[in-house]
Structures are given as C-alpha cells and as structure tokens.
C-alpha cells in the first residue's frame, strides 16, 4: 500500500457499534439502529416485472433477463428465500413502484421516479423501506432507462440487464457488498461484464446466513498477530479442496470470525487486509477494520460436517506488505476459460520484478508476463475440464510480502456456440419439438427463446443431451423472430440470431380450383387460417406474383403458369416462416370461363343458356356451390354441349334466391364460378312452395377436402394424359 498519505499503521475506525461476530458477506443495516435488514416472509417475496420494460428492448427480452436473475437467487441451495413473480397483467402494468403493495422491477424511462435526473450517473438503484427492527416493508429495483442503454444480447457499451439485476436483487434481499471480487455483490459493474449474472459462493453464503434452510458447517476462529494481540476487521476467506473460494467474512473487533453456510468438506483459510479492490468504504458501518498486516494463510486443512461448528487454530498474521493486487478499475471477476490461455492485466501496487504470481488452484498455471509496479500482465492457462468457480490470485514479493486477491478469477466453460436450430419456425402456441445443435452445452444451461426460458432438467424446460445437443419442446411464445440463446450457469452465453420464428402457423383448408391452365392466369382461391400479411405463395417452388390477401382466412392467387403436370406442391408461407402446403396442377386445356346465363331467372325445370368459353362435353355445371371452395351446390338436371362457348342446362330443384353457377371440367378439375349467376324464386315469391335448403347438399368435390383430392387429381391428370395419347 503506502500511498501519498501512507503510514505503516492503518486503522479504519467506524461507528462504535460492533456485532458479536461478523459473518461472511455483508448485510444491509438500519442506518440508525444498526439492525440488519431482512424479509420477514422470505419464502414468498412477491416481485413484479413491469411489462413495458426498457425502450432499448422492444422485444420485451427484459422479461426473460429479469426472470433469469430471479431464478438465480431462487436456486440458491440452502436458502429459504424465494422471489415469487406475480405475472398478473394488471400488476405488470403498474408503475407505482413506491407503493408498499408492489415490489417492482421497473425501467424508468422518463425519470418519473425523480432519482435519475440528468447527469446523475446512476445506472440502477434499489430503494428499500424498513422498520426500526430491520424488517423490510418494501423494496424495488429501478433502472435508469432515461440516461443509459441496456441490452440482453451483449451489445457493446450497454449494461447487461441480467448482470445489473442480479446485483440489485441481492440488495433487495438485504445483502450489501462483498469483498470477494467474483461475487455478484461485488460493488462494481461494467458494461463489459456479465459474470455477476451467476452467484458466487460468497453470495450463497449470505443467503444461507440470512434465510437458512438446512444445516451447514461453520468455521470459527481468531485472527492474531505474532504478539498474540487480536486483529479487528481482518477479511477471512475459506477455500474448498479445489481451491475455489466459498466464502469470506470480517473478523469482529476482537478478531473473532465465523464463516457460515459451508457444505460438508475440507477447507483452508487465510486472512487478508480489507483494502483493495473492496475496502471498508464499500461495506456497512459497524465494524472496526484494521489493515496493518499482511495476507497470511492458516496452516492445515479443516473438515466440517453438516451442522458442525468447528473452531480452528488462531490465524497468526504477518507484517504489513507494501504490495497489493487488484483495483476497482479492474473489471472483476476476470474470466478465464477451461482449456484456454488468457492474458490479463491487473492493477495494484508494489508489483515489481522478482515477485511471483500463483493461483489457489495449483492445476491452473499463472505466469507473469511483465511487472510494472502499478500493474502486472499475466497469462492464465486453465486445463480442460477444470471445475468452474472463483479462484484467488496471490502475489509474493522477494522479501516475503504477500497480497491475495479473493475470487478475482472466475473459471468458466467456453462460450456456448449455437450452430443450428431445427425447426426454424413453430406455432406461437407452442408444441414444437426443437433440436439445438452446437458446442459447449453444459448441464444446468438455460435456453431463452422470445419470452420463454427453458432450464435444463426442469419441468417444461430443456434437456442438455450432450455438449452438442439440446432438446426442448416450445411453450407458448410471443410471436416474432427470436434469437435462440443458450446461457451457461456461469452467465456466459451463445446465441443464434433470428433463429426461430414463433408465429401462428397457416393452414390451407381448400384450394379452388385444383388445376389451371399451364399458361397461367387462373384465379385460385385459398381458404384456411392464419394467413399473414406479406405471405408468399409458391407452386412447385415458383413464387406467384399476383397474390391478394383478403383476410387471415382468404387469399386469391392468379397463377403464373408452369410446366404441364402435377399435382405440384403448393406452399403458403407467412413472413418469417410458418408454411402451409397443398397441391395444384397445370394442365393443357384452357380454363373454362362462365360469363352469364340467359335468362338469369328461372324455376326448376327451366332450360337456360350458359355463355362462356372453353366449355367441353366433360363440363359439369352446379348451382349454389360455394364460390370460394367449389363445395356444395346442386348439379344441373341436364347439360347439352352446344359448343365451347355455349351450354344448355336444365335448372335443378331445391334452390331459392340468388345462386352461384359453377362450371368445371370433370377430367381436369379446372373450374370457374359466376356468383349470383341465377336467381330462383324465394319462398315468399313462390308462396312457400320452394322449401329447398341452399347449398346443404354435398357436391362430389366436397369429398375431396383433405388429402383425398390429391389422389383424385392425380387420376384426373392421368386420365387426361391417356386421352391425349389416345387421340
């Protein structure tokens, strides 16, 4: 240390309110009474995510990011605290965050809170209300959407919603800052950091102390100097057998410390002065913090069982050191990746040539590249398969001085890589079986698609089959084109942009007519559902140019024409995906055209003349068929072919009022229809003599709904070709 104002003896004096023991992590306290803040109903702390979210995130991806943060705290093993999201739309629409009746996660886009005036420099804040005894009555998380930009997709220069939220939710739960550089409650954040998304052992220890659910081990002891005097406010950390830091805490003013929330296992301990990068200035008041000693390891390994409180030997600290490792300007935790070598820069003091860098995991190789006094550059090589977690870095000087940076490194897997997503589209109502292929998928991963989160191994979640495959079945998803994001438990992520379209999937119920002239120009009506604006219709892969969407259930296509044959695949594709299929055939004959009847009124048994074009002896005539589908109608009693432009037909019985007239080539399925082409007397016109039900009879083509039409159409085309061959 030894700054401009330095002296050898450094004592931090704070309010003379000293608890009996100081535990790992730090809790928020009542500013006047010193009571630690807590929720009295920790198992059901209701929170609401404001639906509007950030104006930087029109896709509402703040929802999933915040839910991931909530889930991260809820997954804390050994803690009874649960944040329970209230998803009532009425609650999500509320903005009255100050009300005691709602604990809101809210993006303040216009400084309605008054806490984000211009130039405040505040990115997010957590107001907490409490009673004199320390119980929390209300807490909310406010993001400064007015002055800062947020991201859920790693956009540079923007604050990661999940990273910020995880930190702020720790405050909401009653935690203050941690001296562990890799903890989510580490005081400093940066736009380039996402590793606070995942809790560190120290955060977990905090939750276990405040809201315990289970029986955990404790290590307790005293920090002393060589002259047997005690050391107040020393920061004591515990490492597990993998060298991962699992917690830490301040000794009290008598040098006593207790590290709580330990799983059964073997631990080693060390003490260090709380100076950099987190100092007493970052912690709650109520502690005496002494920093005039050097970082020192406690010899031996200590084993604790569940529920056991184990006293350990006095931790005798050495003399103060002039070197220190880590500054708040470093973006901790520094990430190192399994199976990779990473070059890093860490600031500090006294980092001079001749010093030695080591890591709490001996299988991780740390090599100094260059020493510059106030900084050191180093490379860190992590073997593949190394356990993830937070590692301490330690620097030792040539004269025995030492500084330890607790949890400054975080071992993570490589970023997940999403290569393919299949299928690329599915119904917004869910039910699509999806296969995600890629690399570096690890157990416990989450998949985010639109507003849905799928967590490995949870009901309705996903299944990490192996490092290259994830399976899931989609749930109801907000419509749109979505990234598919795989988030590792460490918080690192991989994504495939615009990889999945969630949409109402179109369906085709009818195609009318089923065939058209090979030269094109046939007006075809598609009936079905979920026809979206901007859709495309293809026949045999050829996009049809003249497509009119009348509604979500009706589309009219004027065919381009194509090679005689088929039935060809008919596809209707909504923008962004979602395809419905049917079939259509191109045939040689010209399409029949009906232009009028003479007379246009009649009664059953009357003979009328049907005018048009391209009639043939095979032309059928039906009255009262559905003009969009060709379904229904009553066949003419008789048809006489007088020529390609004229038919004489006898009106059938059983109809009333204006009726369509449909002509159809029986051999090809080509058809044309004249709406209201004939007018029958209504029941009032005929004195009730005519009681026919219009259009209720099933015409022969109605049976062709579904897939049977393909077979029939094929037969028709085959028959046509046979006739041509015969001719």
């Amino acid at each position: 240390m030894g700054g401009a104002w330095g002296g050898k003896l450094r004592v931090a004096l704070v309010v003379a309110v000293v608890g009996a023991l100081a535990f790992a992590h730090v809790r928020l306290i009542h500013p006047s009474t010193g009571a630690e803040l807590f929720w009295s109903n920790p198992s059901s702390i209701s929170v609401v995510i404001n639906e509007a979210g950030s104006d930087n995130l029109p896709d509402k991806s703040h929802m999933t990011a915040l839910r991931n943060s909530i889930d991260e705290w809820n997954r804390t093993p050994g803690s009874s605290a649960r944040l329970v999201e209230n998803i009532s739309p009425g609650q999500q629409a509320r903005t009255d965050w100050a009300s005691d009746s709602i604990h809101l996660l809210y993006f303040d886009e216009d400084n309605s809170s008054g806490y984000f005036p211009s130039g405040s420099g505040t990115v997010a804040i957590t107001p907490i209300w409490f009673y004199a005894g320390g119980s929390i009555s209300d807490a909310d998380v406010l993001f400064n959407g007015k002055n800062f930009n947020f991201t859920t997709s790693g956009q540079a220069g923007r604050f990661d919603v999940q990273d910020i939220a995880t930190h702020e939710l720790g405050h909401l739960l009653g935690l203050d800052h941690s001296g562990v550089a890799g903890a989510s409650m580490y005081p400093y954040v940066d736009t380039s950091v996402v590793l606070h998304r995942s809790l560190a052992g120290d955060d977990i220890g905090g939750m276990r102390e405040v809201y315990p659910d289970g029986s955990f081990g404790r290590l307790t002891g005293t920090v002393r100097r060589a002259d047997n005097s005690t050391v107040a406010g020393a920061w004591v950390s515990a490492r597990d057998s993998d060298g991962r830091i699992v917690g830490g805490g301040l000794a009290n003013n008598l040098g006593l410390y207790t590290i709580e929330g330990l799983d059964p296992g073997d631990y080693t301990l060390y003490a260090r002065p709380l100076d950099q990068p987190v100092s007493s200035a970052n912690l709650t008041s109520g502690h005496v913090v002494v920093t005039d000693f050097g970082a020192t390891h406690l010899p031996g390994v200590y084993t604790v069982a569940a529920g056991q409180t184990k006293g350990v030997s006095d931790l005798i600290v050495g003399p103060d050191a002039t070197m220190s490792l880590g500054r708040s300007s470093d973006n901790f935790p520094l990430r190192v990746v399994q199976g990779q070598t990473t070059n890093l820069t860490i600031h500090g003091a006294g980092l001079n040539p001749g010093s030695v860098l080591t890591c709490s995991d001996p299988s991780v190789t740390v090599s100094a590249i260059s020493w510059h006094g106030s900084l050191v550059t180093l490379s860190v090589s992590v073997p593949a398969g190394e356990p993830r977690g937070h590692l301490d870095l330690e620097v030792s000087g040539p004269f025995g001085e030492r500084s330890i940076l607790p949890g400054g490194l975080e071992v993570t897997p490589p970023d997940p890589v999403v290569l393919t997503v299949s299928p690329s589209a599915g119904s917004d109502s869910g039910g699509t079986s999806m296969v995600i292929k890629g690399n570096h998928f690890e157990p416990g991963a989450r998949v985010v698609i639109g507003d849905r989160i799928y967590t490995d191994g949870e009901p309705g979640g996903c299944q990490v089959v192996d490092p290259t495959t994830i399976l899931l079945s989609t749930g109801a998803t907000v419509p749109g084109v979505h990234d598919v994001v795989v988030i590792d438990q460490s918080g690192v992520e991989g994504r495939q942009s615009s990889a999945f379209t969630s949409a109402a999937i179109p369906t085709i119920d009818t195609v009318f007519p089923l065939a058209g002239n090979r030269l094109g120009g046939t007006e075809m009506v598609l009936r079905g559902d979920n026809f979206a604006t901007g859709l495309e219709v293809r026949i045999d892969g050829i996009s049809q140019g003249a497509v009119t969407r009348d509604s979500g259930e009706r589309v009219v296509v004027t065919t381009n024409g194509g090679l005689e044959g088929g039935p060809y695949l008919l596809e209707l594709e909504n923008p962004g995906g979602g395809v419905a299929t049917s079939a259509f055939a191109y045939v040689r004959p010209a399409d029949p055209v009906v232009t009028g009847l003479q007379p246009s009124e009649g009664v059953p048994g009357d003979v009328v003349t049907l005018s048009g074009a391209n009639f043939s002896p095979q032309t059928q005539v039906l009255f009262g068929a559905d003009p969009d589908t060709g379904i229904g109608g009553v066949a003419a009693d008789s048809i006489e072919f007088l020529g390609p432009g004229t038919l004489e037909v006898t009106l059938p019985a059983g109809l009333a009022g204006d009726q369509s007239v449909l002509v159809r080539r029986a051999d090809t399925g080509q058809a044309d229809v004249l709406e209201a082409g004939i007018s029958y007397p209504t029941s009032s016109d005929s004195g009730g003599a005519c009681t026919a039900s219009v259009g209720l009879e099933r015409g022969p083509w109605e049976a062709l709904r579904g897939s049977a039409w393909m077979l029939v159409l094929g037969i028709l085309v085959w028959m046509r070709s046979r006739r041509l061959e015969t001719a």
Partner: protein
Amino acid sequence: MRTLLTLLAFGALSLLVSRPLFTEPAVRAGTALRMDVPDLVEAADLVLEGRVLSATPVETEEGLIETEYELAVDRTFRGDDVFLRSVRLPGGVLEDGRGMLLAGVPHLREGEDALLFLSHAGPRGVRLPVGLAQGRYRIVTRLDGSKLAVRDQSDLGLVDPSTGDLLEADGLHIRDYAELVAEIEASMGSVRSQAQAGAPK
C-alpha cells in the same frame, strides 16, 4: 488490551479529526458510472462547498422518505451563488424508526463540511449526488490545519496516529483539498468555454 487501547486512542484521534464521521451510514451502492472530477463537474447542475446546518427527514405523499438538508454555503463552483441553500436528497430515517435507503446514496450529517456535486432537481425537487457516493467529498482538517477532501461512504477515517494525517485506503479517495478545488475550477473553465462556444452569436 494493548490493541484495544490503541484502537481507543485512534478513535479519539479520529474523533478530533473527523467527528462527523461517527454517525454516517454505510455505503449501499446501486450501480453508477465511474466518474472523475471533470466528469462530475460536467454532469452536475450544482457544485458547492458548505456546512450542513440541519437534516430533516420527511415523508412524501407517495410514501417516499427524503431528507431536507440546510447548507451554509461557503463556495459555489457551479450554480447560483447563495449563502443559504436547502437541498433534498432521497432516503432517511423518520422519528418512529421507519426508514428508506437507496443503494449508494450518501447521507450528510449535521455539522459536516461537504463538497457536493449535485444533479438537477427532479420532479419533486430531489437532487442526487452525481455518481452516487462519488458526488460527495467530506472536507476534514488535519492537526496541522491543512484540509483534505475525503470521498467515502462509510463512517470511516484512516488515521496515522503519529501525525493525525488521514491515510489513503483503497476504496477511499483522499485528495488534497486545494488540489481538488483547483481541478474543479479548471473543469469549470472548460465547461464555461464550451458554453460560450455553443452560445448564439
């Protein structure tokens, strides 16, 4: 026992040097940008140095708790120069013990000499220290009469028992008072220059 006595001695010394420190609430950081002095000056609406005469907690109709501070202003670097000024900051504790804190917002204490970088007033008249705790320096006097500017958020003082000097502790920002004032003035010069350059001709 020796350590305890030493601590008590340090405590007494610290009390002489920075008595107001002993009632200050702890840091509770929200999330704020790291800012240096020029950043603070540029972002602030009001930069002043003064003594806190009173602190009055109030509860708003919306249920928010805020504290009204009355300041005797020694010097105004930016903003209207008035001798007495009231500023309202969020958070505080009411007489009945109910309270509200906002992570990272420092509280001022009666009698404290402070150098403040304050934001524009919000809709309710509430200002925030720019950059939360970064926007407030406490001005303390050493035993030799020289001044220091200490930026921290806790009831913390680092004291060299032999000289009475405040010591630099990591996480604390201890500046020579005159040096800090000079930097503020220089930053204000830059702000004025920019304003003149942007003013209509």
